[in-house]
C-alpha cells in the first residue's frame, strides 16, 4: 500500500495481515453507507459529513445494515472533528494516552477518503523527508534529479491524491520537521525546488494529527503551526461501564497477543482498578459523597489496562492463577504515586478515607498497605 518507490518485494506482502486496516475490516459498512448516503459530499470525500458521523458513532441503515459504533464516547467530539475536516482545516486530536486518538484518526481517514494508510509516525528521529519528499539516491546519481527519482512522503501522496494524511504523535517530531507542515497547511502546496515544480493539493486533502498533551519532553507546536489546526481534546471515558468494557476488551486482546497463560479474568478486580482510577482522576468518589485529592499522574484507561495485564502476569507466574487484589496492588500504587511525596500523601489519604471503609475492599486495602503506602 505504501508508495515507496523501492519496488516492494512480493514476499513482504504475502500472507494475511495480523491487523487489517479500518477500510478493509469495515469495507462492507462503508459501502452500504455510501450507497445510502444521499447528502452532499464535499469535493474529494467518499461520504457526506453526516454519513461519516454515522459510520463513527454507529447506526442502523434503512436497508437494515448495522453500522457498529467505532468510537464509544461523546457525539460532540466526533461532530467537531468531522466539521473541521469539512472546512478543510487540519485536525489535531489531543488527549492523554489511551483515549483512542489514533483509532479515531484511522477511522476518520478511512471514512472520508477510503484510505487510512498515508501515515507518518512522529518520533524524535523523524526527518524532513518523512513529511516532504526524499530521493531514490541510486536513481538520482544515475539520472540526475527527475520525478522518477523523487520519493514522495505520505503527506505528499495525500496531497496528490486528495485524501487524508495522518500524522501520529506530532509533538514527538523535532520542531523544524513540524514546521515543514506549515506551507503544506497554509499554501496547500509543496514545492520541489530541485525540479522547479510544486505539488498542489487536490480537493479533499487534509491532515489529521494526534498528540499527547501530558507527556514530558515533547516539542511543543509553534504557534504558527498550532493555529492552522482545530484542536479537539478527547476526554477520558464518560461512564464507568464504558471504561470497564474498554479495559476488559483490551486486556483480553493483549493477553492473547502476549501469549500469557490463561487467567480467569476477574471482573471484580477490573472494576476495582477502574473505580480507583476514575475516583482519583475526577477527585470525587463514584457515589459523589466524598472528595479526594487527585495525583499528578494521568491515570488513563491505558494505564488501567497495563495494571491489569501486569497483575495477570503476576498471578499466572507467581500467584495461584487467579487475579487477586495483591496482584494489582503494587501496579496500582506505581501508577498513582508518580511523585513520591505529594502523590504518596494523596494515595495514603485515599486508602484511609475511602478504600478502608468500603465494603468488600478489605483485602485490597490490606494488600496496598502491605506494599507500603
Amino acid at each position, binding site marked *: 500500500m505504501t508508495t515507496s518507490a523501492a519496488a516492494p518485494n512480493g514476499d513482504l506482502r504475502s500472507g494475511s495481515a495480523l491487523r487489517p486496516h479500518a477500510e478493509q475490516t469495515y469495507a462492507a459498512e462503508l459501502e452500504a453507507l455510501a450507497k445510502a448516503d444521499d447528502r452532499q459530499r464535499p469535493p474529494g470525500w467518499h461520504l457526506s459529513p453526516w454519513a461519516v458521523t454515522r459510520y463513527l458513532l454507529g447506526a442502523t441503515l434503512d436497508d437494515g445494515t448495522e453500522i457498529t459504533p467505532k468510537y464509544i464516547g461523546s457525539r460532540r467530539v466526533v461532530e467537531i472533528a468531522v466539521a473541521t475536516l469539512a472546512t478543510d482545516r487540519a485536525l489535531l486530536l489531543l488527549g492523554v494516552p489511551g483515549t483512542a486518538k489514533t483509532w479515531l484518526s484511522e477511522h476518520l481517514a478511512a471514512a472520508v477518503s477510503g484510505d487510512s494508510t498515508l501515515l507518518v509516525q512522529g518520533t524524535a528521529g523523524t526527518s524532513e523527508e518523512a513529511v516532504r519528499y526524499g530521493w531514490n539516491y541510486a536513481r538520482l546519481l544515475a539520472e540526475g534529479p527527475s520525478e522518477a527519482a523523487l520519493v514522495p512522503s505520505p503527506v505528499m501522496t495525500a496531497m496528490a491524491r486528495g485524501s487524508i494524511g495522518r500524522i501520529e504523535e506530532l509533538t514527538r517530531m523535532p520542531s523544524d520537521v513540524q514546521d515543514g507542515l506549515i506551507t503544506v497547511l497554509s499554501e496547500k502546496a509543496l514545492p520541489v525546488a530541485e525540479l522547479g515544480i510544486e505539488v498542489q493539493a487536490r480537493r479533499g486533502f487534509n491532515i489529521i494529527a494526534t498528540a499527547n498533551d501530558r507527556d514530558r519532553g515533547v516539542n511543543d507546536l509553534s504557534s504558527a503551526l*498550532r493555529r492552522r489546526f482545530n*484542536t479537539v481534546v478527547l476526554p477520558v471515558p464518560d461512564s464507568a461501564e464504558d471504561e470497564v468494557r474498554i479495559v476488559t476488551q483490551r486486556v483480553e486482546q493483549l493477553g492473547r497477543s502476549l501469549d500469557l497463560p490463561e487467567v480467569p479474568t476477574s471482573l471484580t478486580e477490573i472494576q476495582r482498578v477502574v473505580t480507583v482510577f476514575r475516583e482519583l482522576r475526577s477527585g470525587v468518589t463514584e457515589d459523589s459523597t466524598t*472528595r479526594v485529592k487527585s495525583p499528578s499522574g494521568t491515570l488513563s484507561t491505558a494505564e488501567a489496562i497495563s495494571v491489569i495485564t501486569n497483575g495477570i502476569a503476576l498471578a499466572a507466574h507467581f500467584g495461584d492463577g487467579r487475579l487477586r487484589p495483591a496482584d494489582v496492588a503494587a501496579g496500582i500504587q506505581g501508577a498513582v504515586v508518580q511523585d513520591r511525596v505529594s502523590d504518596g500523601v494523596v494515595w495514603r489519604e485515599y486508602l484511609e478515607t475511602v478504600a478502608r471503609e468500603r465494603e468488600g475492599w478489605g483485602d485490597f486495602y490490606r494488600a496496598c498497605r502491605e506494599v507500603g503506602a
Partner: protein
Amino acid sequence: MAGPRPDTAKVSVLGVRHHGPGSARAVRAALAELEPDIVLIEGPPEADAITSLVGGLQPPVALLVHLSDTPKAGTVRSREGWGFWPFASFSPEWAALVHAHGRGVPVRFCDLPAAHTLAERIARAEAAESAPEEEPEAVDQAPKETPRVRADPLGVLAEAAGYDDAERWWDDVVEQRGDGEPSPFPAIADAMAAVRADSGPEAGRDARREAYMRQTLRSVLKEGYQRVAVVCGAWHAPALRDLADYRIKDDTALLRGLPKVRTTATWVPWTHGRLAAASGYGAGVRAPGWYHHLFTAPDLPVHRWLTEAARILRQEGQPVSSSHVIEGVRLAESLAVLRGRPLAGIDEVSEAVTAVLCEGEQTRAALVHGRMAVGERLGSVPPDTPMVPLQRDLVAAQRRLRLKPEAFERDLDLDLRKDGQRERSVLLHRLRLLGVEWGVPRASGGVARGTFRESWRLCWDPDMDVALIEAAPWGTTVASAATARAVESAADAELPALTALTEQCLFAELGEALPEVLARLTDRAATDSDITHLMSALPPLARAARYGDVRGTDGARLRTVARRLLARVCVGLAPAVRGLDDDAAAVFTRAIDSTHHAAGLLGEGTQDWTEALEALARRENVPGRIAGRANRILADAGRTGPEELRARLGLAMSPGTEPTRAAVWLEGFLQGSGLVLVHDERLLELVDTWLLGLSEDRFTAVLPLLRRTFGAFGGPERQEIGEAVARADGGAAAPPRTRRPIDTGRAAPAVAAVTALLERSGG
C-alpha cells in the same frame, strides 16, 4: 352574565417563550405594527400599580410580590410568601412593557393574582410541614415557583420536527430569527392549538390562570378598548385567541372561592446569574448572555460573539488573531450544517471557541464561555420604588431591639449573656453577611468567641438601603436572606474564607446555613493541598465546637468536621515542612502552636496529633525551628521524658550541627517561655556547653539569634535563667536552691479560690 358578545376581531394574541430574544424582537415588531390601545401581559396583576416605574428601571429586574404583612421569621409564610417574575432586556414581556411605556399605552398584567398563587402555595407547604416527618429538606428546597406539570408542548412539536431537544427547536424556529421577518405569532398559536387539541383541556391551576386571563381580556373589551395586544406564554395563546369558545359562566365558576392573602408588589434589581438559575417564569435561561447578545446584536450574531470572545482572550494575554475568529466562524457554521440547524447556536459557538480560539485549552475556554454565556449584569431600580419586605423586616427588628439607624458614628458595647443584647449582635452580624455594614466590630474589643463582650461602631449610610434592595432576592427577612446569602457564598469560597464564614454563621446564629457551609468546608478540606490553609481553618472551628454552647449552637457536627480537618493535618504535616526557609518555618511554627491549642480544645484526636509531632521531632531534615518547637510542645505535654529531652537537645546542640540551625532550634524550643531551662539544670548545662564550644566567629554569627530568643522573655524570667547559669558556674560550691517553707495556713484561702475557679470553668 348576558350581554353582547365582545368584539375580538382586533385582539392580537402574541404567544411567546418567556425570555426568548426572537420572541422579544417579534413582539417589538408586532406591537409597532399593531399600535394597540392597551397591552395585556402575563404576570401578576398586583404589579399594575407600579408599571409607571418602568421608565426608571434598568433590566434585568424582577417583580417581587410578597405578603403585605411581615411574617414571623422561620415560619412557612416567611419562606413561601413571596415570588419573583424576572425580566431581562430580551424578555418579550419587557419589550411589551417598554413599548407601552414609550407610547403612553396602558398596561395590565393578566395572570392569576399572586394573592391566590401564594395562598395556595402556603397552604400546601403548611400541609407538608404538618405531615409527619416528610423529608424537611425537600420542603426547604422546593422551587419558589410552582413547577408546571404538563406534557411539554414544545417537546411534542420539536419531536414532530425531528429534534430531540425542545429548547433547540424553538431556538432555531423562533428565537434566532432576525428583524424584518413576518410575524410568527399566528403560526405559533395554530401549532399550540393543534397540540392542545391532543392533550385535552387544561385542568387545575393552569385552567384557573387561563380563565383569569380571559376574564381580564373580557373586562378590557367591555371598557371599550378595541385594539388589544396580549403577550403570554405560547401555550396559552389559543385559549385567549379563541375567546368566544369559552363560556363566561365556566370561567367565573373556576375562579370562585379561591384562597387569598394580602399581597404587595415591588421591583427589585436582578442579575443574569440569577436568571440562569431556574426561577420566576418556569424554567431558567441556560445562557442569558447569549440571548442578550442575540437580542442586541444587529446582525451576524456568530461573528460578533466570536470577535468578542477573541477580545476577552486578548485581554487575558492570549494571542488570538483575526484568522482564529474567521476559522471559528467557519467551524461553528459547518457544525450547524452538520447538525441540520439553520444557524449556529450557543453549543456551536462554544465548541468553536474551544477548538479554534483556545486551541483545545478547556479551562481557558470554560472561563471565556462561562463569562460570556451568563454575561453578568446587574439591573437597577429608581429610589422611589416601594420598600422591599427585607427593609420592612429590618425596620421592625430595629424597633423591637431599640436600635435606631443614625447617620453619625456611635459605639455600642454588648453583653452577650443578656438576650436582648445578644439579639442585637446577631442582627448586626446578619446584616454584615448581607453586605450592609451598619455595624463594624471595633478592633480593640475583639470578637473572639468564648468571650461575652462585643464592641461595635454603628453608622447608617443611605447607600445601605440600596444594598438592602439588592439583597432582596435572597429572602424577605434578614434571617432568611442572610442564610441564603451565606449558603451561596459558600459555594465558591476558598478554605480560609469558608472557616471565616462558618464563624460568621455562628455569630449570626444562622443554624440553617451551617450544615451547607460545613459540607462545603469538608469538600474544600479534602482537595486543598496547602496544609497551612487547613491549619488556619482549624482553630476557629475548634473554638466554635468547644464554646458553641455559649450561644446555643450544636457542637457535635462542628466537632466532627474539626476532627476530620485535624486528621488531614496529621497526614500532611511531615511532607509539608520539608525545605521551608526560616521565615516560612516561623510562620509554620505559629500554625503548629495554634493547631496544638485547637487539638487541645477538641479533646479528641489529639493522639494522632501528638504522634505526628513526635515524628516531626525526631526527623532529621525538618527545619530547626520547627523541630525545636515540636520537642517543646511534646515536653510540655509530658510526652517526652526528661532523659529523652536531654538526649534530643544534646543532639541538636552538638558540635556536628550547623550553629545557625542549633540557634533556631533553640529559639523554637524556648519560644514563649524559657523557664524550662531553670527547672532542668541539665538542659541548661547542655546549652551552656554548646555555647562555650563555639569558635569566636561562629559565636558572633549566632549571637543575634540568641539575643532575639532570650530578649523575648520577661525580666524576671531572664533573671532566673541568669541566676541558674551563675549557680552552674559556681559549681558544687553554690548553695543549693532554697525555697521558703510554705505557710499552709495562709495559703489555704488562695488555694480554695483557685480550686473554685477551676471547678467553675469545668476544667
